[in-house]
């Protein structure tokens, strides 16, 4: 068995060519069509100079173009670098430069964000524009790149080669590029499908951005089992989305706590028949027990699978919904062919109930962070077997007697808002750009809908003034929407330790 990521798509196109692979913007695309379009794109990319191992940035909203681009880049032998299209120019520029991206696939609509990036750092290789090439840009229309009839040459990819680089924020420094190999992606698609019991007659309703692993692996796992993904650009208009999901008889709905809190706000879902739904999966943050119970009442046919994962290995564990009552608060056990265990500070395996760092081993663990050997060495450390490296998650867990895992907390100050990581340091740097700001600290505070809300606490320079709206407007220009503080508080001074460190616990 070969283990390249796109073998999943090729396999589905062979075994069930006419089965819907993706439904996007009300159009159905079969596995054969996606396979063919991605072949043509791959051949075109190769013709345009894309070599094995080149990084190709995909900056696209959820769309059929994004799915075709993902597979096409892999088939060309290149490395997918997904960039969240909600990112601001500074961050996109950082990513393109960090992993030395040579080629780009994006959409005409995103030219507004990309214009300043490309002005400073023109794309030296291929640029493909869905929706057509903007007047002020150079490149090739997406339709033309997938319009040929060529098949790609075999680039010689092996499963140790990189398939994707996905950027993730940490508590300090810029975002880090998580390198996933073909073997990682191939294995994860199988392990995720196995652990959830995905079936070929499933229809996955996906509102998650494909720019993150949770969304991306809906596509890959669906190809592995040969089932359909009903793709939505966002969950901004939840009623519209749920009506479409009802019409398409969606059976599986992956989400984050904000998605499920929004659905609960819409209860009793009048006129929306979601009786086809058999499973919801929750990740990124724990679902409050009250929400879990109300979801069970609202959608009794659909169990909620609690999961935990991180970009560095995609998915760690999940809990069978049938066990949720007897193991409340657990995120389950390790997915197939992987192991997850808790270690104490002195490096021994923790006893049941003892809190320590969660460590993960298996074929799903990243190759490392692109160009960051020190950061990589912190996360990937020697394991019990000589030469093996295991993933230290940096998250605190405990396990019960049967190995079921319970999330306890993080070892840094990063928190999740709407399921996305918020690095307080990243937001604080932007707040300090405001002349009026003398001191800034960012903390997460509990929020019914978003899990945690971003709160900025500021001390201003003498005589300076700044309104909460001004602060938010400044942040909106520089940060993804999720990172923009929804709460802004001004204090005379910030509480500090004797050594001058801001006491964040007192700001929450």
């Amino acid at each position: 068995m070969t283990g390249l990521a796109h073998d999943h798509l090729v396999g589905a196109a062979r075994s069930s060519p006419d089965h819907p692979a993706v439904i996007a913007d009300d159009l159905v695309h079969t596995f054969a069509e996606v396979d063919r379009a991605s072949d043509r794109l791959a051949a075109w990319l190769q013709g345009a100079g894309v070599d094995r191992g080149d990084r190709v940035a995909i900056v696209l909203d959820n769309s059929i173009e994004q799915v075709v681009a993902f597979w096409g880049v892999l088939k060309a032998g290149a490395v997918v670098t997904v960039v969240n299209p909600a990112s601001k120019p500074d961050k996109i520029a950082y990513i393109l430069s960090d992993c030395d991206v040579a080629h780009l696939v994006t959409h005409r609509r995103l030219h507004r964000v990309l214009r300043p990036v490309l002005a400073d750092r023109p794309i030296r290789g291929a640029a493909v524009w869905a929706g057509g090439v903007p007047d002020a840009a150079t490149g090739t229309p997406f339709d033309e790149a997938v319009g040929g009839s060529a098949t790609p040459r075999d680039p010689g990819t092996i499963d140790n080669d990189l398939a994707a680089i996905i950027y993730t924020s940490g508590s300090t420094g810029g975002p880090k590029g998580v390198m996933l190999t073909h073997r990682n992606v191939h294995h994860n698609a199988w392990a995720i499908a196995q652990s959830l019991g995905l079936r070929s007659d499933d229809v996955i309703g996906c509102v998650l951005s494909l720019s993150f692993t949770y969304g991306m692996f809906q596509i890959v796992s669906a190809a592995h089992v040969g089932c359909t993904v009903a793709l939505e650009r966002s969950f901004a208009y939840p009623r519209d989305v749920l009506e479409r999901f009802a019409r398409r008889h969606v059976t599986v709905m992956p989400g984050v706590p904000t998605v499920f809190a929004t659905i609960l706000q819409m209860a009793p879902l009048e006129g929306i028949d979601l009786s086809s739904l058999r499973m919801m999966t929750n990740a990124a943050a724990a679902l409050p027990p009250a929400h879990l119970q109300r979801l069970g009442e609202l959608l009794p046919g659909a169990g909620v699978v609690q999961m935990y994962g991180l970009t560095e290995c995609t998915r760690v564990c999940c809990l069978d919904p049938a066990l949720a009552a007897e193991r409340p608060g657990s995120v389950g056990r390790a997915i197939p062919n992987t192991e997850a265990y808790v270690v104490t500070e002195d490096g021994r395996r923790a006893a049941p109930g003892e809190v320590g760092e969660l460590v993960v081993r298996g074929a799903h663990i990243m190759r490392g962070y692109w160009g960051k050997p020190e950061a990589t060495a912190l996360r990937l450390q020697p394991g019990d077997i000589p030469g093996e490296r295991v993933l230290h998650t940096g998250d605190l867990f405990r396990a019960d007697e049967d190995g079921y895992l319970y999330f306890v907390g993080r070892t840094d100050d990063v928190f999740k808002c709407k399921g996305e990581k918020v690095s307080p340091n990243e937001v604080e740097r932007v707040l300090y750009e405001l002349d009026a700001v003398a001191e800034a600290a960012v903390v997460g505070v509990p929020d019914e809908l978003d899990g945690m809300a971003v709160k900025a606490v500021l001390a201003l320079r003498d005589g300076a003034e700044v309104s909460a709206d001004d602060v938010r407007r400044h942040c909106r220009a520089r940060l993804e929407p999720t990172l923009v503080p929804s709460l802004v508080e001004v204090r005379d001074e910030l509480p500090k330790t004797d050594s001058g460190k801001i006491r964040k616990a007192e700001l929450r």
Partner: protein
Amino acid sequence: MAGRHARVTTRIRGFIVDTFLLGDDDGFDDSDSLIDGGIVDSTGVMEIVAFLEETYGIAIDDDELVADNLDSVERLRKFVDGKLAA
């Protein structure tokens, strides 16, 4: 009537440009999707709703939070008109 349409359109567009594009009106069409264009996200939608409620003294139900009502300057203008006429 045409004058009022234009005023409502200008005001809504002004709010969107000021709030989400930092005052830099890059010439998006009044019929363009605000979501697909990446101009607003789900939080932005709620900010637009709060702006409409405050500015026009209207109440917007959860059932009305759909793309048909809210996802372009033109749709917003029609939606506000309908609410004011009701």
